[in-house]
């Protein structure tokens, strides 16, 4: 029980995997572009969670193996990813609006022009 209540890195990784899976399913199955974008956010945040969890795990490793309190690469990387997600969401929404003006729809399965 104790071991169950004690939250380890593995728990974070399992949560991240679950979030990632949900995000993937959302991207693959939902028709609304807005929801697709939101699912992408979910994927990105699952990655962030992994990055942060593994970064914390890494701080607990000995210094000679590259660990220690200053092993913050994962933390920093997750901030980059957040920034990137914001930028990507802005661009995605911009495309969505331009698309809506032309086709009056936001359903992704009605957008199949980009082919041979």
């Amino acid at each position, binding site marked *: 029980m104790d071991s169950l209540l004690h939250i380890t890195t593995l728990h974070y990784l399992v949560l991240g995997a679950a979030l990632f899976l949900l995000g993937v399913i959302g991207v693959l199955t939902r028709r609304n572009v807005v929801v697709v974008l939101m699912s992408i956010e979910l994927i990105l945040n699952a990655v962030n969670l992994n990055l942060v969890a593994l970064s914390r795990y890494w701080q607990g490793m000995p210094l000679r193996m590259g660990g220690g309190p200053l092993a913050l690469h994962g933390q920093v990387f997750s901030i980059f990813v957040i920034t990137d997600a914001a930028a990507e969401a802005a661009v995605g929404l911009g495309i969505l609006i331009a698309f809506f003006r032309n086709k009056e729809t936001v359903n992704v399965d009605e*957008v*199949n022009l980009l082919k041979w």
Partner: protein
Amino acid sequence: MFFLDHIYLIPLLPAFGAAIMFFFGRKLQKKTVNAVCVGAVGLAFVFVCGAVWQYLGWADANHHQPFEKIVYTWLGTDTGQSNYLTKDGTPTSFGADAGFLLDPLSSIWLLFVTGVGTLIHIYSTGYMAHEGGYYRFFGYLNLFMFSMLTLILANNYVLMFVGWEGVGLCSYLLIGFYFHRKSASDAANKAFITNRIGDAGFILGMFFIAWIFGSLRYVDVNHLAHSGKFAIGDPFITAATLLLFVGACGKSAQLPLYVWLPDAMEGPTPVSALIHAATMVTAGVYMVARSNALFVLAPSSMKVVAIVGALTAIFAASIGLVQNDIKRVLAYSTVSQLGYMFLALGVGAFAAGVFHVFTHAFFKALLFLGAGSVIHAMSGEQDMRNMGGLSSKIRITFGTMFVATLAITGIPPFAGFVSKDGILWETWAHEGTAFHLLWGIGYATALMTAFYMFRLIYLTFFGRKRMSHEVEHHLHESPKSMTVPLIILAVCSIFAGFLGWPHSLGGSDRFARFLDPVFSGEAQVLVEGGKSAQLAAGEKEEEHTSSTEYLLMFLSVAAAGLGWFMAKRSYEHADKDYAEPIAVAAPPLYKTLLHKYYVDEGYDYVFTGRRKLGDVRLGVMGLGEASSWFDSHILDGLVNAAGWVTRLLSSISSWWDKWVIDGIGVNGPAILARVLSYPARLVEWGLVQWYALVMTAGLVGFLFYYVYH
């Protein structure tokens, strides 16, 4: 020797007159035109008289040689370089001089051409007084005199040909003088074109002479011909003489080229008198007489000349029997008389032929001028059916024309009797019975001549007046400028015969003796050739058969009298509805004669092609049509075929380009690419989520691969 040394002035004087007329004539007064043109010809006549007179003196001292005056080298060079080979291979240089030759033959022609020419010029001042183009007319006449005198005086065939063409040109210009009348310009064309046929013969004949003899100078040619180098009957000389005779046939209106002369009457009457009766048409006779040395070497050519002459004589005379246009009767009479002249030349009686030319010039010119005077009096009427009873109105014209008629029909002692009888006698005396037949033709022609000439006289001057009252009111004798030439010519027509009065009638035939230097070579050649000399034999025979000669003479006078009597009986009292005796006796014959044996129609069918023979057109126009057909069907067909082939090839090429090059070469790879692209397309859905799904599947695949590897 002034006149002989300046003999070139004889043709040049009328040339100056013509030049003045052509350059300044338009602005000149009629009086000035008269002075210049009549003066030039009159002066030429004076020069001719002077030259002939001086020649007679010169010839006595020079063995009666011809007098030759070479002014300059006209054709070719005098460097002595040869430029062609003669028939026997001698290198020779072609050349012709502007040279003049005076001998008895050219003297006679000069005298009557300038003499009669002067009279006709004077006559024209009266006849043409009211016509337009006065200066033009006289300019042409003077140009004609220049050409004719060049023709006569030339010392070689080439220069003669220049004059020959010149007179042809002037004849054309003067026949077409009333050029606004279509018939006149047609007649002018007809004369010119018909003469071209003859001229082609003349040119070819000249080539033959240049080839055989290596020279075109009469003196050289005659010398070689007399030298005995050439056999009698030489085929090349025969060819040359026959071709020359073709030229003579054209110019002197012999069968079958006579057709232009009757139509030439479209010209003004003085022109008919000068050119188409007295002078130009005798050029052929002159040329044959000039070439006598050659013709003697070609007996078969002589026979052709005699036969053509005799046939022409009777052919034309028979047409003349029924013609109604006063000038046409005279035109056929001229053709007929020219036939006599050629008959004489053909039987070797050159002197007799020339004598007939000489006398004919006077009486035929007189007849034409008289006819002109009649037409003048009749206000332009030429149809004898509308005349009659003019003898009391125009006495001088009647008297002079009557004299001329007596002369042409051969009533002694008028000029025509002597010359025509000479020809008939020479024909009869020529050995060979076939020549008796030619004599028979000539005799029948004499009878016809008498008939048609007195028919003309009776229809014109006797019987009832058949003209309209208006014309009758205007009847008047012509002015002095016209009647005086008539009187002078009448005097000549009476007395010219005495120049050649035959031995048998107590004369001495001075005319023939005068011509002896020109024609004597002929007798020599005949002797050398081993044949009995015709002249010598003729002279011998003459003494033996003088009774025959008297008989023939009596017969021809009888024929003239018979013709006169028949014409008098038929036409003396001709009224408006008078009957033609021939039409009464044999209507089809009359119709044939009236239509001139349908020769013009025949020529239209065969040579000009103006008429179609059934559906076929022959002759020149037929050739034109055939050429046109050939052009439009064969040549254009070839052109079109070439075009068709080109189009065919281009459509094949276009098909090849479109289907093979474009199809297989260009579109083929494209189609191949398209076909091959179908499988690749299948995975290109265009749906983002499918791509994402594949990506995810790939990711999962890799994951499994690495995990369970």
